[in-house]
């Protein structure tokens, strides 16, 4: 029977034991992923699709040069906080 789970602040994901790394190569890659960026570094440029006031647009970070930018990541739409 499917088990009901409590709604939390992350999107529902499989239990950790179900998503074991397939090889050591994978583990190394994971380490690199977790490398934090440093203050004083240039913000890596990117171009991403976005939703803005009723339209789908493409946003490039470098277009904001000359302005102060707050870039906020969050776990997912429809999460609680």
């Amino acid at each position, binding site marked *: 029977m499917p088990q009901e789970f409590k709604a939390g602040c992350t999107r529902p994901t499989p239990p950790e034991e179900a998503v074991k790394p397939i090889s050591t190569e994978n583990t190394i890659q994971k380490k690199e*992923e977790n490398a934090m960026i440093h203050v004083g570094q*240039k*913000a890596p440029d990117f171009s991403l699709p976005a*939703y803005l*006031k009723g339209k789908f647009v493409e946003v490039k970070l470098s277009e904001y040069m000359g302005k102060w930018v*707050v*870039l906020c990541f969050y*776990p997912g739409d429809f999460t609680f*906080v």
Partner: protein
Amino acid sequence: MLSASVDSVFVHKMWNDFELSKMVKGGIPFPMLSDAGGNIGTLYGVYNSSAGVENRGRFLIDPDGTIVGYEVLTPPVGRNVLETIRQIQAFQLVRESKGTQATPSGWRPGKDTLKPAPDLVGKVWEVWSVDKAFD
């Protein structure tokens, strides 16, 4: 202001139209970026690949494109927006002063700044006290 998650632009639209527009009049005024696959989150060090989501990472970027500060929280605790605004105000003041002023702990707009110079070395206690970090 730019927000980003791994959700698609279609889900961003639904979230804006059905929920956020009920909290913010007129809906979200800034671009809601779709970072499917977490590629940009990975570049910034906030992508959690086992959960497939991005942590609450907030980056302040100055007009030269330099990251001047960031804060990263795990999902269940939200950010303090007023603190983010305070930090931007402090960084703007320091930048406008061309580095002649610095903002000590507890600084808010209107409070005293420090003027770093050789004669301030060892004399900060004369112009700043611990209670200023809390008032």
